[in-house]
């Protein structure tokens, strides 16, 4: 059943229908593969891995006006992890905030779709990439929106590796101290960072307990289970007084079997003849 939640003339229509979100996510993954194929390499594992989460945020939660990306009352989506830009651009194109045709310029000299998302691109709220910034700025945005009487929410996507940055925890303290219950941190656990698995590089678990101990309303769900994601965001909406941490476990390269099975897929190089296989595997995926 398709349940349209809100659709004023110029705001993006939202849905809580898992099938509709799944279709959006698949379209986004196709955008990701097309962008990656042009460049021949990149953060395609992250882009594919986060598509289901981004589809849920953009098409079931986020209040935006595609034709007016700087609408003052919009919900903010803050991407800490700038290298996930490939996934964000796919969402922005699918939402109509940037033209789909422009995706073919991803990573090209002179393109505004840089490998790490710059805030000069419509729909990008903050220049991420220097990790540990996103939650600090999200706290400030949430304070500012509340002070100005706006009911907009702030969503921050950060990564498991980013939980090694001290500033993330400074911001976690601030979010709880200031009772920012309109702030939602989504922590993507794909179990990969530049030098390997976080458990080998610098252990961060147990994440649920850590965020809860910092005073956050914390949940942990599969980042590929649409009903579970929808339920987590619903629980966040229904829980006042605390900021919300939603830890999502995701699979790098999700939807393309060859990429899912790679051992090291933080930054993927793909041979020219592998793209046809990747595209076919994505087409055949659920």
């Amino acid at each position, binding site marked *: 059943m398709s349940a349209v939640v809100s659709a004023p003339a110029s705001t993006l229509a939202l849905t809580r229908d898992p099938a509709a979100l799944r279709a959006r996510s698949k379209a986004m993954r196709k955008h990701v593969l097309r962008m990656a194929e042009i460049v021949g390499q990149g953060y395609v594992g992250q882009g594919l891995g986060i598509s289901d989460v981004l589809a849920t945020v953009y098409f079931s939660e986020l209040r935006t006006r595609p034709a007016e990306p700087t609408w003052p009352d919009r919900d903010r989506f803050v991407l800490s992890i700038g290298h996930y830009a490939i996934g964000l651009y796919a969402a922005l194109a699918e939402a109509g905030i940037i033209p789909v045709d422009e995706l073919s310029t991803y990573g090209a000299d002179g393109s505004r779709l840089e490998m790490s998302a710059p805030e000069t691109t419509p729909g990008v709220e*903050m220049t991420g990439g220097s990790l540990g910034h996103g939650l*600090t*700025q999200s706290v*400030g*945005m949430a304070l*500012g929106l509340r002070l*100005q009487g706006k009911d907009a929410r702030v969503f921050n996507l950060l990564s498991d590796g980013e939980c090694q940055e001290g*500033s993330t925890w400074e*911001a976690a303290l601030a979010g709880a101290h*200031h009772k920012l219950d309109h702030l939602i941190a989504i922590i993507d656990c794909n179990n990969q960072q530049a030098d390997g698995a976080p458990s080998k590089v610098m252990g961060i678990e147990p994440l649920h307990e850590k965020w809860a101990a910092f005073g956050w309303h914390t949940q942990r769900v599969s980042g590929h289970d649409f009903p579970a994601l929808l339920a987590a965001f619903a629980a966040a909406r229904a829980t006042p007084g605390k900021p919300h941490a939603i830890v999502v476990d995701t699979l790098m390269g999700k939807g393309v079997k060859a990429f899912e099975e790679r051992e090291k897929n933080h930054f993927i190089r793909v041979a020219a003849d592998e793209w046809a296989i990747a595209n076919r595997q994505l087409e055949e995926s659920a």
Partner: protein
Amino acid sequence: MSTTAPTKPRGVTGTILASDAAGATKTENAPFGHALVRAAEKDARIVGMTADLGKYTDIHIFAEKFPARFFQMGMAEQSLIGAACGLARTGLVPFATTYCVFATRRAYDFIAIGAALGRANVKIVAGLPGLTTGYGGTHQGIEDLALMRSIPGLTVIDPCDATETAQATAAIAQHDGPVYMRLLRGIVPVTLEPDYKFEIGKARLLRDGADVAFISTGLMTTRTLEAARTLAASGVKAAVLHVSTLKPFDRTAVATLLARVPRIVTAENHFITGGLASAVADLAVDEGLRIQLKRVGIPDCFCESGSLPYLAERYGLTAAHLASAAQEILR
């Protein structure tokens, strides 16, 4: 271990916040805090924040007046600056306070990327510049201007006295863009003339003279003015150009002075490298101007603890040192 006892009574400092106002004939209390309140009464966009140093940066005056518009961020400078950038992105004008050392050493990436690259309209107001605290190397901001000057797009200001601190506070509140301003807090001397007018990016010729020229910033301008008066008594005519905005640097005013009076003494409450002296030397090279330059400032070392007069004497920042530097360059 030395067993030699001090031969004469020493100045002491047991506090982080020593006052530089001793001997000043006129002072003002908390010029930044009061100026911020005045600006905020007219501009609802202004909000205040600190990292556990409200009382020590005079922003507590704003917090008492506008409690809902004040955000305590705790002892967490990265969070302070990051949240300031976030507040600015919602259309507000955050003033974030801490000490120079903590803002610039601990939160550098957040100023460089969040504020400057992100063009966030944040105002970082940082206390204990240079040798205005007797607390030693952990608290003396001796290289902050060098760090901040090297960030593209950041405005950097080092006010001289209470008058300029108040005027600069009002000016940066209206300026659209990230600013780093050094803070003179507590009881602050008034040394500039009542008709002084601060303008971002403008140097002011406070005194003219053809023999030698002082180019100074921050509280050192109080001392260059005193040195110029001393020199006048012995017949030496010294100009004083006050450069309170280090960035953008008033190249026109400085180059004009260098061309006219090529014997220059720079004075800054900061390392002699990376701050005002370096900016003057860069400009002279760029413009092909032949000058003689003596740099008065903090040498390449972390400084001791001690009373402010002791430190100024120990590291050569007094008016007498400045007058001597001018005499040397004239020899």
